[in-house]
């Protein structure tokens, strides 16, 4: 076993060793492995040769050899990539050689080729090339800034990296050196893209400043200062730019003081090249200056020049800050430093002059005056001022100096120079102080210059005034300036009027000049007028010409109206007052005064102003018109027309025509149509082409249906001329009436084109066709038109009804007219026709056996006022056939009686007529008709009985009912009426029999029951068996019938019987109590109070309040006052009071002599009297007077000694 194991181990070791050997061999002989067993290929050998060539420096031969190793037919990617890398190495080597030869573009191209082959980023090569180019560029700028190579290098940089800021900056410097300012500016604009470097901003700002673009310069230099806040060069340039641009002078002073201070430019006086370091660490110039000294094409590094510039700028800035003395000091520093330029001498002179150091200023100003060409107005002014104020001269020469000063002052055209104007005024004052007269030429020149500078102070005014004294031909511009100054300051001088007159002589020019300067011309003109009127009240200025009064008045009036419209009433009043003072009799002014007076309701003033107007302008119609319109407004139409008529007489031509038309309108408004027509006629004769008069004439003729007149107007209607379509309506009617159908149709067409008038035009067309008897066409026209609800539709219905009537179609006419309102039918006179049509229709319905419809139409005919002798008869016939009761009304009954005379009518017809009379309350006629009956029927007897019953003749009624009963024994109406008549008569037994009979005949069970109960109740021996079965409903029904009897004795008897039969019934007992009240009152009324008092003792219960009061009265009347007091006292209500009972108590106690109690009751009576006691209608003081009687008695009682 161990041997086997050893054997196996040996065998395994051998196997593993063999396997490892094979693997190593395979690794060695693999492609690319250890080339021990591989032969070097020819291409590999070629590559090795090429590398050797490159190593010798012949990159071109190496590159070519490498390229030949590629086999296009059998490409080997692995080997090809090696070839590509090798080519990259060749090109890179070539680029290095080009850079060494400063062939940057070639180097860049070669490097980009190498990069492509080696897989390196292109930007890396660009950056490297740019850096190399910049380095070269900087070197050139430092050594030879004007070399053309700089431009080429800059172009190369821009080709590598477009818009390279530093490259552009160096190029800009090169351009500046070459004097190509525009190219430099462009390059600096490109360079300024480097936002964190101050150099481009400094140079661009400086360049712009020198090219007179101070605003742009300030912008750039501010940017530069932000980036390099400690750079004196920037301070100088920015300070100068600020002054030049009119910027913040204080800031400029601060900057320039720093620049000229010890830490400014002076610090670099000995090391000018070091000044670039002040531009900061990012500055390209500073970086370059650290390696080599550099110049500046703008001379910024020249410290002395910059310092001189800084001083001049500082002095100017100080002047701007009104620090003339400080400015003079600075200028003097410059001057002392040898800067004798015009700028310094002029500045020094001006500063000294402004500092009132005129003696010091004079030589500098004179020197500057000699150098400056032409001299500036400020220089001239200050020179003149220094001359005028110089004290260093002999007094004898002062006058000459003054003359010289004035000459100097006026030799220059200084118009518009404000400083000159200010200085000139001081010179003038000096001249005045020295009593030096200004020559006319001086004054004119001064005045013109003042005018041009809008000078309007006291000196200017005085100058203008002087000029006005001397000048016969005062220049307009002086006058304008004076007016402006005088208005602005509200000041005036001696020649104020002359100057104003001169200015306003050319008012339009003056107005234009004011407008150009945006001055207030209206205010100036008002000043003129105000000043004028103070000197010449009552008239407008003459100088501006004869028409000026009217122009100025119109202007003032317009201004007043503007003030009113702008809600500035006080201003308006002031202007109107001015107008009135200028022209107290002028029409426009008086007109407006009258208007304002009218608006504030001051009628007296209105009349006064209009009277004044009329007085001073007797031929002016306008005041009359105003007056008339006021009167018309106030409802005085007659006066208005009178005044307007007068105005028309005064007016002429078109104005008269218009006034006539206006008067006509007022007449129209006053509904004075005749006058309106007359006036329209006159107006038309004056202006035949005017539309309004002819339209007015036609409209008036139409409204009063004067068709002859309307037809006569046809020739006056011209074609066209107006857009008023209503005129076409009238023209159409006019032409139609004149027989010109074609023109009528044309005008209708025009009118129909107006949507607002289309319906009316169609209607008029239908009317015209109706006039022409073309009724079918008229109907078609109406049918084809839509008429809105309202007046027009009613007119159409009326016309359609008329057309139907005309065609004999009365039913349609009736239907159309029934659509109209009653008012319209009456207004258009259609009631008769409508009623006749209704009557005809009703007759037709009756003939067609439709009596109910006939009744309706006939009633409508009657209601619409249709009169026909047989209308009542026809209507009665229709009603009778329709089963309706006969018509009511005495007039109709009389008509019936008339058409049914006694000899032709039956007895029943007479009874029918008599019944109608009776029911209308005409008993006399009823009696007469019945009396004419010769052979009465039961109806006649019945009507006679009913008539007697109504007249209270119970016996006659009974007789007639009995007669009727004899003729018609089983008639319910007769039995019923007879029963109640007997009951009323107190004939109870007969009544009971009649009730029984009536109950048998009555068809209604309920009525039968009541009649049966009454029959049981009536007899002296009451039918208790029947009454015992009564129900509460029966109680109420029977009581209701009893209450209707109207005879208290009968009522009381029946209710007593009923109470005996129905002792438990509350309603019965209540009715009995009520009957006692009425019975008692009836007894008192008949003068039998003692009967009531006697009966009352038998009544079981205490009387109710009304009954107790009545019994009290009964006792009082009979003299039983204690009993009366008892009854009255018991009748008083438990709550509140009863004034009537209090009065009864007062009367009773008074008559008993108990005045104490009487007073008490009278007082309580007075308290409740107004509410409780009745008074006759129409006598409002009745109760008061009764109360007065009582109060008088009470007063008397108070004064009397009690009995």
């Amino acid at each position, binding site marked *: 076993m161990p041997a086997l194991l050893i054997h196996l181990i040996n065998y395994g070791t051998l196997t593993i060793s063999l396997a490892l050997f094979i693997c190593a061999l395979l690794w060695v002989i693999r492609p690319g492995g250890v080339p021990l067993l591989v032969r070097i290929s020819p291409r590999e050998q070629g590559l090795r040769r090429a590398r050797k060539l490159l190593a010798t420096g012949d990159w071109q031969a190496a590159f070519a050899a490498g390229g030949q190793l590629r086999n296009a037919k059998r490409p080997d990617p692995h080997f090809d990539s090696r070839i590509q890398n090798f080519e990259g190495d060749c090109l890179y080597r070539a680029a290095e050689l080009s850079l060494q030869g400063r062939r940057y573009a070639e180097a860049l191209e070669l490097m980009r080729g190498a990069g492509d082959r080696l897989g390196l980023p292109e930007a890396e090569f660009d950056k490297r090339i740019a850096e190399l180019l910049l380095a070269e560029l900087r070197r050139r700028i430092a050594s030879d800034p004007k070399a053309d190579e700089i431009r080429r290098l800059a172009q190369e940089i821009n080709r590598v990296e477009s818009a390279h800021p530093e490259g552009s900056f160096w190029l800009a410097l090169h351009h500046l050196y070459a004097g190509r300012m525009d190219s430099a500016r462009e390059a600096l604009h490109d360079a300024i893209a480097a936002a964190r470097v101050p150099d481009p901003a400094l140079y661009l700002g400086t360049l712009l400043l020198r090219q007179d673009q101070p605003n742009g310069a300030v912008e750039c230099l501010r940017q530069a200062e932000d980036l390099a806040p400690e750079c004196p060069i920037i301070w100088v340039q920015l300070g100068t730019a600020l002054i030049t641009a009119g910027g913040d002078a204080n800031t400029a002073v601060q900057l320039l003081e720093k620049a000229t201070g010890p830490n400014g430019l002076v610090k670099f006086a000995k090391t000018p090249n070091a000044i670039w370091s002040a531009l900061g660490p990012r500055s390209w110039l500073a970086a370059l200056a650290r390696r080599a000294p550099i110049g500046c094409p703008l001379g910024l590094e020249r410290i002395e020049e910059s310092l001189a510039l800084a001083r001049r700028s500082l002095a100017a800035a100080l002047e701007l800050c009104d620090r003339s003395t400080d400015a003079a000091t600075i200028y003097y520093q410059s001057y002392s430093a040898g800067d004798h330029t015009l700028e310094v001498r002029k500045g020094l002179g001006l500063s000294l002059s402004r500092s009132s150091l005129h003696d010091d200023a004079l030589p500098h100003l004179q020197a500057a005056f000699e150098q400056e060409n032409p001299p500036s107005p400020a220089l001239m002014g200050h020179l003149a001022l220094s001359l005028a104020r110089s004290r260093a001269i002999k007094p004898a020469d002062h006058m000459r100096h003054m003359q010289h000063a004035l000459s100097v002052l006026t030799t220059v055209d200084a118009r518009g120079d404000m400083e000159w104007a200010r200085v000139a005024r001081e010179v003038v004052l000096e001249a005045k102080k020295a009593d030096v007269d200004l020559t006319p030429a001086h004054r004119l020149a001064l005045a013109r210059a003042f005018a041009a500078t809008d000078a309007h102070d006291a000196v200017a005014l005085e100058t203008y005034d002087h000029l006005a004294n001397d000048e016969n031909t005062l220049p307009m511009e002086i006058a304008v300036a004076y007016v402006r100054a005088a208005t602005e300051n509200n000041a005036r001088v001696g020649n104020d009027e002359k100057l104003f007159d001169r200015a306003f002589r050319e008012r339009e020019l003056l107005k234009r000049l004011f407008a150009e300067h945006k001055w207030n011309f209206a205010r100036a003109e008002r000043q003129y007028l105000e000043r004028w009127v103070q000197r010449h009240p009552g008239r407008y200025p003459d100088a501006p010409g004869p028409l000026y009064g009217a122009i100025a008045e119109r202007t003032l009036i317009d201004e007043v109206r503007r003030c009113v419209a702008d809600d500035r009433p006080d201003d308006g009043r002031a202007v109107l007052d001015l107008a009135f003072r200028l022209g107290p009799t002028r029409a426009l002014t008086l007109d407006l005064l009258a208007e304002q007076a009218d608006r504030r309701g001051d009628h007296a003033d209105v009349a006064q102003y209009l009277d004044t107007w009329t007085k001073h302008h007797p031929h002016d119609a306008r005041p009359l018109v*105003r007056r008339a*319109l006021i009167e018309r407004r106030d409802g005085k139409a007659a006066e208005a027309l009178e005044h307007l008529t007068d105005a028309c007489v005064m007016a002429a031509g078109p104005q008269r025509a218009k006034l006539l038309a*206006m008067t006509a*309108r*007022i007449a*129209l408004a006053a509904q004075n149509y005749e006058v309106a027509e007359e006036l329209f006629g006159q107006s038309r004769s004056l202006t035949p082409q005017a539309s309004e008069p002819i339209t007015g004439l036609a409209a008036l003729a*139409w*409204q009063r249906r004067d068709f002859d007149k309307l037809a006569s107007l046809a020739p006056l209607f011209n074609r066209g001329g107006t857009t*008023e379509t209503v005129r076409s*309506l009238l023209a159409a009617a006019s032409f139609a009436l004149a027989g010109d159908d074609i023109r009528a149709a044309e005008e209708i067409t025009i009118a129909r084109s107006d949507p*607002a008038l289309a319906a009316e035009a169609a*209607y008029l067309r239908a009317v015209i066709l109706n006039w022409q008897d073309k009724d079918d066409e008229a109907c078609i026209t109406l049918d084809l038109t839509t008429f809105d609800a309202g007046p027009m539709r009613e007119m159409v219905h*009326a*016309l359609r009804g*008329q057309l139907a009537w005309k065609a004999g179609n009365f039913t349609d006419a009736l239907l159309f007219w029934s659509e109209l309102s009653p008012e319209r039918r009456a207004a258009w*006179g*259609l009631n*008769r026709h409508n009623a*006749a049509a209704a009557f005809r229709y009703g*007759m037709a319905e009756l003939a067609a056996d439709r009596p109910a419809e006939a009744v309706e139409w006939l009633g409508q005919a009657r209601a619409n006022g249709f009169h026909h002798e047989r209308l009542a*008869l026809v209507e009665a016939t229709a009603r009778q056939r329709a089963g309706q009761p006969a018509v009511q009304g005495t007039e109709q009954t009389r008509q019936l009686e008339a058409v049914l005379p006694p000899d032709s009518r*039956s007895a*029943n*017809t007479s009874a*029918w007529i008599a*019944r109608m009379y009776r*029911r209308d309350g005409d008993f006399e006629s009823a009696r007469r008709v019945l009396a004419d009956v010769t052979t009465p029927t039961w109806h006649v007897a*019945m009507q006679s009985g*009913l008539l007697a019953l109504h007249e*209270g003749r119970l016996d006659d009624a009974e007789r007639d009912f009995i007669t009727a009963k004899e003729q018609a024994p089983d008639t319910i*109406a007769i039995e*019923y*009426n007879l029963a109640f*008549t007997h009951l009323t008569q107190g004939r109870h037994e007969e009544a009971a029999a009649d009730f029984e009979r009536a109950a048998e005949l009555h068809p209604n069970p309920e009525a039968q029951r009541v009649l049966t109960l009454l029959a049981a109740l009536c007899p002296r021996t009451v039918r208790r068996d029947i009454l015992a079965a009564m129900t509460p409903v029966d109680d109420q029904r029977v009581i209701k019938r009893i209450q*209707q*009897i*109207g005879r*208290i004795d009968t009522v009381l008897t029946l209710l007593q019987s009923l109470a005996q039969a129905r002792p438990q019934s509350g309603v019965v007992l209540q009715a009995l109590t009520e009957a006692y009240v*009425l019975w008692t*009152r009836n007894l*008192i*009324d*008949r*003068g039998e109070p003692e009967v009531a008092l006697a009966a009352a003792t038998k009544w079981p219960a205490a009387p109710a309040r*009304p009954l107790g*009061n*009545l019994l009290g*009265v009964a006792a009082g*009347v009979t*003299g039983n006052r204690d009993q009366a007091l008892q009854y009255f006292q018991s009748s008083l209500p438990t709550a509140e009071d*009863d004034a*009537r009972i209090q009065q009864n108590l007062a*009367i009773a106690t008074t008559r008993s002599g108990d005045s104490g109690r009487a007073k008490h009751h009278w007082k309580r009576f007075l308290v409740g009297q107004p509410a409780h*006691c009745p008074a*006759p*209608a*129409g006598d409002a003081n*009745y109760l008061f007077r*009764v109360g007065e009687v*009582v109060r008088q008695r009470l007063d008397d009682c108070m004064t009397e000694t009690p009995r």
Partner: protein
Amino acid sequence: MIREDAGPFLILGIDKDASDANVEAQYELRKSASHRGELKWSADDIEWARDQLLNADRRVVADADSWNTDIASGDVLRLIRLYRMENTSAGWEPLDPEPPAELPTTSIDMDALVAELPLPDAPLELPAIARWLERCGAVGLDPWSPDVFGN
């Protein structure tokens, strides 16, 4: 009975709010009733009562001295009306059948009736014309209108 104790209102049988016309009418009725013996009051008493009431001054004195037959609530008057005792005629409603009238047949010449009527005129109140006249009468009539003179 003494008439002064009763007073003129009771003698004439009228309320205190009776008008002069009522007084006169009631005077006539009472006189007749007295004549027929239906009243206890004499004609002189009735005459006296009338005189009292037709004189305004005497009436107010009489009112102050006269009894009230009704109370403040007017119950008595209400009952008089309920029981239909205001009039002399019966209070009950009689049956009143309409007699059967014999009415003749009526013939009317309708054409003649229509022919009597003239043909109605067509309405001519064109609103536009009335409006124009109204507007014309109102336009430009402000007294202070600037165009009042047609300027």
